[in-house]
């Protein structure tokens, strides 16, 4: 199987949140108490958390005079910041292109939460055995030739799932065939070097609560450009300090200076 991807076509979304319910059911996540929230839109709950791996965001769009919806879920980046940040390999990329979490390897450092540009990984702070929670791309379902639970359940076919090249071509086709209905941008096609979730929207993504302005190059490059040199810097430092120590000690001996501690 090749790399899989998803289209999230927000123009077709009616905000029914069936995807959120299906996600909870498949992943066996508990219900939670929520309170009214009017911060950005009126979504409920207001953010992703350890009990919600996906979220439909509600924004009131004054210009359009209507509600616009967006969706949050792990983007399954092509070169994921979270995987590169994880010190123990608890997060890893699989052959389907999605990012897996291996619970027993996690040390709970939460560097992945800090590193993810889409604010996706979440943590159950109240648990005695906490761990990272995030969308799995239903890797278990996909391995069994099913589509992810959210894609399966969506009544308006706002969510499509398939081979990455096909999904990308399909997303482009939709924009080209109805230019008036979409902003001419596929969110996720080349954000942080590309992801496996392509969002389409009728209004600018910034207005629907998406993280915009992200670099088009993979984020791990930024740490790599330093970390790559660490072994070389280390060897150089050891050599340099050894040389200095040797020269200094020789001089001290010649001058008869005692090393007195």
């Amino acid at each position, binding site marked *: 199987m090749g790399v899989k991807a998803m289209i999230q076509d927000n123009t077709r979304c009616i905000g029914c949140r069936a995807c959120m319910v299906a996600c909870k059911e498949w992943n066996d996540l508990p219900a939670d108490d929520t309170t009214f929230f009017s911060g950005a839109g009126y979504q409920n709950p207001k*953010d992703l958390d350890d009990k919600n791996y996906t979220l439909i965001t509600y924004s009131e769009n004054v210009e359009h005079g209507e509600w616009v919806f967006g969706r949050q879920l792990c983007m399954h980046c092509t070169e994921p910041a979270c995987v590169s940040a994880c010190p123990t390999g608890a997060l890893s990329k699989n052959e389907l292109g999605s990012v897996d979490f291996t619970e027993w390897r996690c040390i*709970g450092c939460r560097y992945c939460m*800090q590193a993810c540009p889409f604010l996706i990984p979440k943590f159950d702070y109240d648990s005695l055995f906490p*761990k990272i929670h995030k969308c799995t791309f239903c890797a278990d379902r996909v391995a069994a030739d099913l589509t992810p639970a959210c894609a399966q359940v969506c009544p308006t076919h706002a969510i499509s799932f398939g081979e990455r090249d096909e999904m990308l071509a399909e997303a482009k086709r939709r924009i080209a065939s109805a230019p008036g209905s979409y902003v001419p941008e596929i969110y996720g096609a080349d954000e942080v070097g590309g992801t496996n979730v392509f969002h389409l929207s009728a209004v600018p993504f910034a207005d629907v609560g998406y993280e915009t302005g992200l670099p088009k190059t993979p984020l791990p490059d930024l740490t790599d450009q330093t970390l790559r040199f660490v072994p070389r810097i280390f060897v150089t430092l050891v050599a340099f*300090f050894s040389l200095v120590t040797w020269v200094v000690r020789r001089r001290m001996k010649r001058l008869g200076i005692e090393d007195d501690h």
Partner: protein
Amino acid sequence: MVAASAERSWPAAHWRAILVAIALVGLGYTIVRFAFGIGAIANINQAYPWGWWIGFGVLSMIAFGSTGFTMALIVDIFGVQRYAPLLKPAILIGLLFYTGYAIILMIELGRPWMGWLIFLSWSPTSALFEVAWCATLYTTCLFVEFGRVVTKHYGWMLIWKMLGWIYLPVVILGVSLSHIHQMSLGTLLTIVPLKVDPRWWSELLPPLFLVSAYSAGLAIITIEHVLTTHLTRRKPRLDLLAGLARGQVVLLSIYLVLRVADVAYRGVADAAFQLDWLSFSLWVEIVAGFLVPLVLFSLPEVRESRWGLLAAASLVAGGVLLNRLNVAVVSMEVKHWQTYFPSVGEVMTTLGVVAAGILVFAWAVRNLPIHSEPPLDDAEGAP
């Protein structure tokens, strides 16, 4: 004789009681954390996974722990033996800060019982992996370096001799490890260019962290020397502290030039003059934490006065702390409705570790040959 008795009874009973109380409160919160989870005592949350524990307990404590490697660099590597009197306290303080950081990390990690897995993993792309390895190896080096003091004092001459053989290689290794993990602490946050505010995010974070770590180390040594000699009524080596102060002038200048050049080069100078809380935090950090001490350290009057040196060094320590908090916590851009402020539990656990560290340090000063400065005579020492 005055000094000897002052030393024996230091710190004074009421101070000792206060420190023990703080340490016990920290221990209490730690017990609650392990009984009921991190959420029971901490305010870190889904938007702010890193808070005070990382900003103070890890990033700042490791920077403060630079005492050990900066002094070892001066005395053992460059062979400036004049500064040898400052070396033993520097190594002990470094050791205590690194141990303290490790304790706080065990409280902070969600799954500390899996921590060992880092050492069986291979994740060279992770700055945290690099920091964990180097900081742990370096702590081992500090134990070897300080082991020389302990074994000599208790007359375990064989071990002392053996540690002597490996001493210089261990110092060289330790100083090298320190350089790279102090830099890698800066690398930690370079992976999120859009989450760290542009006033702080920079590809230069690694060298900036290294230069400010040197400054932090020298500052902590200065603070320690002024306070310990005062409290145990010994004669402070102001000549040595003045030398460190001259070093600080150079280091702080390099740091400020790098910071300003970096902000200008990245074209975010406008942001620095924006009127908001982040700019306020930025300017407090730069002015009070780096610029004012730079000016103070360059004044001969300050370099000759232990209280002047103490004030300037304290400003540097505060500046480095604020810088680490700004980079890792304050400047984080998340949704505007998401907030974080350290909880009492987060602060008390770290203060508890610091208080325990001070008690251990005081014990060591009383019982081990950490300080060798001569006692003040009566006339001079009368408070």
